[in-house]
Structure formats: C-alpha cells, structure tokens
C-alpha cells in the first residue's frame, strides 16, 4: 500500500504537470477569445510528430528540434485562428465545429505523413535517480523541472509584459479593452499561439516516456477539457490545481485498477462537476451569471 502511494505521488506529479501545460493553454484561449478549442489536442500531436521528424528522422540536435517543433506548432495555432476562427468568433457552435474539424484534419494529415504505427523518441537525458528506493527516470525529472519553468515564464508573461496585461484586459472586458486601443482579434491570435506552444511543449517533453501516437491528441484534448471544467472555465489557477487532481486520480486508477480505465477519470470528472458545481472549483460567479 505504501509503495503504491509513493508511485501515485511520483507519477501523478509528473502527469499532473504535463496535463497542467495542456489545460492551461486551453483555459487561456477560452479566457481571452471565449473559444472552446477542440483542436487543442492536435497541437499536442503536431509538436510530438515534428519532434520525431527533426530529432529522429533527420537527426537534428535536441534543442533545435524542440525549438523548430514549437515554432511549427505556434504557427499552426496562429494560422488556425487567423484563417478559420477570426471570422466566426462569437458564434460558439461554429467555433466548435470548425476546431473539431481542424483537429480531425490535422490528425489525418499526420497519419498520412507518418507511419500509422506509434513511433518512439529517445529520452532527452539518460539515467535515473533514486527517491528512497524508487527509481525515477531522469526524463520524468526533466518533465517536472521544465514544466515548472514554463509555467513561471507564462506567469511572468501574463503578469508583467505589455501583451500579457493586454490579454488579461481582453479576457476581463473586451469592449473596455478596445477602448484602450487593444485589438482583441490580435490578442486572441496571440493567445492561440501561446496556448499551442504550451500544449506543444507538453507533447514534446512527454514523448520519450510514451510512444508518439495519434490517440494521444484525443487523450490530451479530453483531459484538457475535463481539467478546465473541473478547475473552472477561464481560471488558470483552477486549471493548475485540477490538473493535479486528475493526474493523481488517473495514476491511482491505473495502479489499483487498470491503465485502460484511466481515461474514464476525465469523463467522470466532467460529469460530476457539471452536475454538482457547473462553474468548477475556481469558477467565477460572474461566468455563470452571464450565461443565465
């Protein structure tokens, strides 16, 4: 029992951080542009496959591979917003249909370009460390460290930079932001790119610990949506906390029951939250009032 708890703690933390990157991206684009982006999981897959291409296929060095993969993911995110979403912003149903269509299209294109079978990416740094008597691969330590750094960078961006503050302004009151000279369309595109980079980075750092497969895109999307709902739509802190709740829960289910069942956790979370407290743990009252 004790062993199982340690495993849940270690693996849950690693998973929690990865999911946090995915979900915070989803939360960010919802907060700024009010878009529920079903193509979010596609970003996760695009960056993982790009990494495979640069790092494994053409054997570029790691840092460059990661950099190029993130650039590609960000550009896809920006293009998705500019070409498809800009014109239909505010029409929620259309947004959902378009983003879902883009997600499916992206994944099928990836399937066409790369082999349909799952691909492998080598670990970024070899070796392992011992936590007590438990072995943890360095890759997982790296996931935690780089995730923390990314989240801090994101926080600094949102809190301290001009564009970060402008993004929050759009999220809090779009009309007032326009009266300050902020172009909400530009900010939405920027948010989409940042959001794509976050999901993409998660896809990259987690790639060596699992296989690069197309299903991961749907797994990332489903978990992302579950976390955002659990944490409260548009609340970045809520997403962070909820990511760990889902992360620990999934590892616990995988440990005690079966790893096939862990995806069910996300669905249960969505169901329970929507029935009991639709605004989520950190959801703002305002959000609900707007809807009523």
């Amino acid at each position, binding site marked *: 029992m004790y062993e199982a708890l340690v495993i849940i703690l270690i693996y849950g933390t690693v998973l929690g951080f990865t999911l946090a990157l995915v979900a915070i991206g989803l939360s960010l684009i919802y907060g700024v542009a009010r878009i529920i982006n079903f193509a979010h999981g596609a970003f996760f897959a695009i960056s993982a496959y790009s990494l495979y291409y640069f790092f494994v296929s053409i054997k570029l060095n790691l840092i460059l591979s990661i950099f190029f993969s993130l650039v590609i993911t960000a550009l896809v995110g920006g293009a998705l917003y500019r070409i498809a979403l800009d014109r239909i912003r505010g029409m929620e149903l259309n947004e959902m249909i378009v983003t879902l269509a883009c997600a499916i299209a992206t994944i099928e294109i990836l399937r066409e370009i790369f082999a349909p079978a799952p691909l492998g990416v080598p670990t970024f740094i070899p070796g392992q460390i011992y936590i007590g008597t438990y072995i943890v691969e360095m890759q997982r330590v790296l996931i935690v460290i780089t995730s923390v750094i990314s989240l801090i960078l994101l926080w600094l961006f949102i809190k301290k930079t001009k564009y970060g*503050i402008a993004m929050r*302004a759009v999220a*809090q009151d779009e*009309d*007032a932001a*326009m*009266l300050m000279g902020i172009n909400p369309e530009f900010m939405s595109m920027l948010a989409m790119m940042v959001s794509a980079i976050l999901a993409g980075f998660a896809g990259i750092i987690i790639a060596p610990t699992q296989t690069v497969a197309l299903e991961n895109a749907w797994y990332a999307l489903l978990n992302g949506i579950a976390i955002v709902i659990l944490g409260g739509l548009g609340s970045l802190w809520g997403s962070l906390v909820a990511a760990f709740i889902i992360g620990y829960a999934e590892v616990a289910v995988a440990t005690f029951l079966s790893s096939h069942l862990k995806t069910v956790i996300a669905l249960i979370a969505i169901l329970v939250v929507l029935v009991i407290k639709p605004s989520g743990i950190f959801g703002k009252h305002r959000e609900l009032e707007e809807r009523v």
Partner: protein
Amino acid sequence: MLEIKDLTVYYESAIAVNDVSIRVEDGEIIGLFGSNSAGKSTLLNTISGLLLERGKKELRRGGERITIFGDILLDGVKINNLRPWDRIRMGIVLCPERRRLFPEMTVKENLLVGAYLRRDLDEINNDLEFILDVFPRLRERLDQEAGFLSGGEQQMVAIGRSLMAKPRYLLLDEPLLGLAPVLQIELLKAIKKLREVKGMSILIAEQYVLPTIHIIDKGYVIETGVISVSGTREELLENPQIKTAYLGM
C-alpha cells in the same frame, strides 16, 4: 476640431441618434445632456468606434443590424470607418459608462493598460504621477484590485486610465453616475483642472445637468435622439425649457 455632422444611428427596431451635429473646438468643455436612453451613449460609442465593432459582431451573430449615417470629422478628416485603436492614436479617447474597469487588475495595471498604444515610455511615468496628483486618493490604492474600490474611486481610475492614452479629445460617458453629490463636485473640479493643465477638449455626456453645467463652455440637450436645445453655458442657464426641465427652477 472634432465635428459630428448629421449623424444618424439606426438599430433595427429604433432610431437611437437622429441627425445630430456637434462641434468640439480645441480646448472646449462641451456638455451633452439628456435623460437615460436619450442617445448619449450611442453617440459617444459611435465617435469612439466601439459601435462599429459591436455592429460587426452583432451581424455575425445574427443579432440586430446597426446602421450609421453621417460623418465624424477630426480636423476635417473623415474617421467614420477607422477602428477604435486608430481613433485613439488620433487622440479620441472614450471613458465608458459604468466605468468598465478591469476588475481583477490592480489600479496600477488598469492605469497602465490605458497607455497601451503609447511608445514614449519615459512620459508614461510622468503622466501616471500627474494622474495621482489629480486624484491623490488613488496613490494608496495602487496595488489593490480595481473591483474592490468604491464607486468614486473606480470613476477616478476610469478617467485616469483614459488620460493615460494622452487624449486630445476626452469623451466622458456619465462620469457622475452613482456618485454622492460631494464627490460629483470634486470630480467636476478635477475635470476642469485637466482642461486647464493639459489643454484637452472634453465632451461630457450627463444626466445631472445641474452640477455639470457650471464647468462647460457649450452644451447640447439631446432628447430621444434629437438635439433639442444648444448654446453656450449662459444661454442654456437662461433657457426657460432647461430651467424647468433640468434645473428645477
């Protein structure tokens, strides 16, 4: 000079502003008086460009169509179709009705967002200091979230935020709304001081004619979208219709 010429704004169901012409000369304070839903906000939102944006959005959502006729001229140049940020660059800044602060940002962040389009970073701090001198009460509130301020303080932040954009023409939409009479007088004095120090032109839309009329140079009265009376402050104060309807004499 900011000139509104024969401006008409239709919503699908009604005319909000009907053939309105207004001139704001440089350095003037102009009053735009009228009761609720007389068309004041529609007029200011049209000048700031916000209504055009809303119109586009509404149209995409299949909502009410908004149609705008007439001209908005800045120094003789038509700005009808410019987007809000371009108009702000040209110096037209609207401080919206009900303040519309960013509730989860601190007072300081709110003020700094106002300077979003500016490139002159050194000047921004001077302007921040100037605003804190005009509204000393904000100094101790700088790091508080704007959503928790009192109504008067929120209005000061809202005006300060608009001032950070360095307006040539400041449009104030019901700045006195929800303020205690003492605060209303205090705020009007501050607004008058702004004109004296910064030399900007100010257009105030208000339903509280009585305290506001004392700081204006010229005024217009708008009723159901139409300008019914206009003139200098003295003329308005002598106008029998205004005396009975708005000044209670």
